[in-house]
């Protein structure tokens, strides 16, 4: 799958549609699953299709003029094959079901990867093209349910991201007809706040900042436990693992005092977005350092914790903080 850049013209079109939403078909988001059918699939010949039909017309006139039946038959055959390609073209979209969308976690200004999960029914769908976010994605789907493709959006800000209206099109099989349909799934992906490029170290509140930075210096090794996914490689106790049958990981003692509190109010001198970015960066750092952390925001507090769920809860709270305007 390859993104294709879209030209200025389509940018202008997109702008016009934003200004005149009445022109836009199916402008309201639809509940999933979205089933494409003949009521919402449009067909037009492509520019190449028009050119080819002009050539076919010239061939037809030539054959008729010279009263040459084999040439006429050849032209008719080619013309009929070209014309009938509209049916397979229509069938590439017809009864295609968009079942679900799923987004990978991402931070603002990063690419948001959205997976679209289709049910193609009994036949494969070739040469599909999805235009979203001013880019085009070409892909094909095999026959069956659960066929997925992924596209990427550029995100600008934290919060809920709605992909909005997308155009699914195809020029299968010969590029003579363009069939398309608009889809606007009811779907929003959470975009975490942007991270700071060079964040300062974690706040030392409650723990020794020195120790936090030299946390793996070995002396305070407490116990060995079995390897779990996402454990850092350097924590693996290789020698012990060799003796034992499974991978063992060194578990460091975390003194009860090693808990930090990330406080929104404790960041004076930064504007709102900068504070959010700082906190988000710290959440990620604390998670990487396996430090238990709590998050205090103007309207809520998330108690101490650690792990993927905790991280998600914190980043979500940060992402959904009201912006300047509110």
């Amino acid at each position, binding site marked *: 799958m390859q993104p294709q850049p879209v030209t200025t013209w389509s940018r202008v079109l997109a702008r016009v549609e934003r200004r005149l939403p009445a022109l836009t078909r199916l402008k309201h988001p639809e509940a999933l699953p979205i089933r494409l059918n003949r009521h919402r699939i449009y067909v037009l010949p492509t520019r190449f299709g028009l050119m080819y039909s002009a*050539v076919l017309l010239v061939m037809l006139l030539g054959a008729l003029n010279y009263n040459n039946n084999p040439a006429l038959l050849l032209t008719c055959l080619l013309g009929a094959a070209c014309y009938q390609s509209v049916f397979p073209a229509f069938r590439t979209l017809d009864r295609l079901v968009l079942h679900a969308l799923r987004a990978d976690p991402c931070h603002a200004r990063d690419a948001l990867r959205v997976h679209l999960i289709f049910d193609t029914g009994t036949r494969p769908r070739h040469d599909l093209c999805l235009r979203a976010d001013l880019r085009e994605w070409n892909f094909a789907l095999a026959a069956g349910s659960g066929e997925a493709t992924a596209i990427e959006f550029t995100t600008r800000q934290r919060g809920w991201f709605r992909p909005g209206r997308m155009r699914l099109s195809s020029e299968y099989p010969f590029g003579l007809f363009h069939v398309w349909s608009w889809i606007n799934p009811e779907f929003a992906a959470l975009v975490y706040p942007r991270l700071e490029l060079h964040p300062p170290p974690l706040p030392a509140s409650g723990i020794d900042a020195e120790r936090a930075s030299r946390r793996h210096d070995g002396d305070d090794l407490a116990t060995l436990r079995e390897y779990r996914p996402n454990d850092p490689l350097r924590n693996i106790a290789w020698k012990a693992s060799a003796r034992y049958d499974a991978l063992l990981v060194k578990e460091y003692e975390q003194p009860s005092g090693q808990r930090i509190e990330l406080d929104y109010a404790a960041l004076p001198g930064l504007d709102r977005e900068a504070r959010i970015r700082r906190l988000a960066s710290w959440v990620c750092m604390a998670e990487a350092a396996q430090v238990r952390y709590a998050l205090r925001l103007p309207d809520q507090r998330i108690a101490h914790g650690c792990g993927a769920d905790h991280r998600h809860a914190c980043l979500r709270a940060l992402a959904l903080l009201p912006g300047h305007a509110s």
Partner: protein
Amino acid sequence: MKARRIPLTGLQFALTATCVLVAVLPHLPRLPWLFSIPILGLVAGRWLQRRRGAARAPSWLKLGLILLFPVLTVVHYGNLFGRNPGSALACAMLALKLIETESRRDARAAICFASFVLMSELLFDHGLAISFILFAALTLYLATLRALQSVAVPVPGASRSRLVADLRSASIGLAAAVPLALCAFVFLPRLGSPLWGVPSDAETRTGLGDSMAPGLVQNLLIDDSPAFRVTFDGTVPARSHLYWRGPVLWHFDGTTWSRPDIFASYGNVGRSLAEANRIGYQISMEPSGRHWLLALDVPVTVPTGAVRGADMSLVSRSRVDRLRRYHVVSALDYRLEPVLDPAHRRLALQLPYDFDPRARELAHRWRNEFNTTEGVIKAALGLFHERFTYTLDAPLLGRDSVDDFLFHTRRGFCEHFASAFTFLMRAAGIPARVVTGYQGGYFSNTGNYLVVRQSDAHAWSEVWLDGRGWVRVDPTAAVSPARVELGAGAAAGASAPWYQAAWLSALRNRLDLINRFWNEAIVQFNALRQQNMLTPLGIDKADYGELMTLLVVFSSVLLGLFAWWTLRAPQVPVDALDAAYARLCRKLSRAGLVREPSEGPYTYARRVAATDINSNTLQQLLAAYTRLRYAQALAPATAVRAFDQRVRALRIAVRPPG
């Protein structure tokens, strides 16, 4: 939207180049080397350049070539328009287009242009073989369009199977197009008269000439293409009657027999014709590029658009440039011109001055010796019979060609004999003329028609006998009766070229049936037959509007069928996972454990666990169903299939209670 330049992959370029080559190749033999060599060079060079990744042709070179070819066309043909110069220029331009084909858009333009060039070949040759080759080439064209359409990243190593898949979908598309194409072909109203210039390119085809110089017909005798096909209304006459009359040659200048122009405009000679034993037949004549129409000796009726000369040869008003059908009635027994017109007598006794003295001397001697016309004829035929050999390998003749043939070489074929015989007759004071045409033909029992080939070309003599009129004398028959009974190939024996071997000719004759069908059904389907096609349906002489209506009706029906196929609901796809779970529940209920309608898989599994049919597999399956159904939006098809297979393989051992 501005078209993006999508570069071509290797396979896409190779396919496009093949399409161009396929379009140009059939034209090449006809083109002068001035065109054919550069065109082949351009295509081959471009292929190599692309393979080796060499630098592209500079634009000044391309521009130069674009200007060069029209100039070459004008220099060689005199103008740019017409079939021949047009196709030469189109081929050259198509090859040039390949040079600059780098993007998908270029390739598509090249395919458009190539389709046109491909079609134009049929304007020159509409034979069955070439037509089918070109129709097959359409598959390649559609496959190329298909390949050009897929812009997804090519998987390395998969290009071969991609090509196969593209060819497959192209041939399916083409096969599906046949009904609509036939419908359009049958009902599309034909033009009564051409919209622009009638094809007027001079064409050189083999066929009967307007003149005969010994040595020229030979080209004809080794040409096996059909000259015309005949369907008889009644029974087929005996082979010895199958003399197909073509141009009659009167004038001899010492080397060449020719026909004075005055006969072309000569009126009817019906009053001087007494005839019997009539036979009617339909001839469909292959394009000859000349005006002659062939007919059995002697035509009694004259087809429309033709005139009959005083010498009974039929001349068409328009040149036979495409397949032509006409019906003629001929008389096999006739008395032609019993009273000889004095002008004709003078022409029929004309001899070139100062040529062939020994032949004249021989004729005079016979004249004095036998004293009767029949005697002289018998003497001449006797001479041929005793001393002469029939062969296609005739030696060249000197200035006094008749003397040379009669007294030195004594080897030759029909036209040598006809020429010498007619010369002798005239020298002996007997009015005589040379008739050229065809003799014999192959009768196809399956198709019930006779095919006459160029190799059946023949020449014979007619002498005028007092009281009997013109009588046909075939001197070749005196030398080689087999020529008349079996045909030229058989008579020539070893001197015939290899491809006229008996078995090969027989095979060709059988295959001619298909050619004839092609000619009858497709090539000759003209405006007239189209109009009369609907007579059985009560529409006499269908006009433009009626044909258009029928075209619209029939194509709508066809397209409606396709639309129905497109829109029809597929068999309601039962969710595979549900089906598999239902199967599992059936198996369990057979074992005595019926699932309650309100029971979810989880509680069901717990209930199963409490019974004695419980097993690890069962618990695993029930857990797998829960996972597949509820742990994700849509279970992957492979996992569902695997689940289904496990359910099918499941055997529940039912233990007797207690």
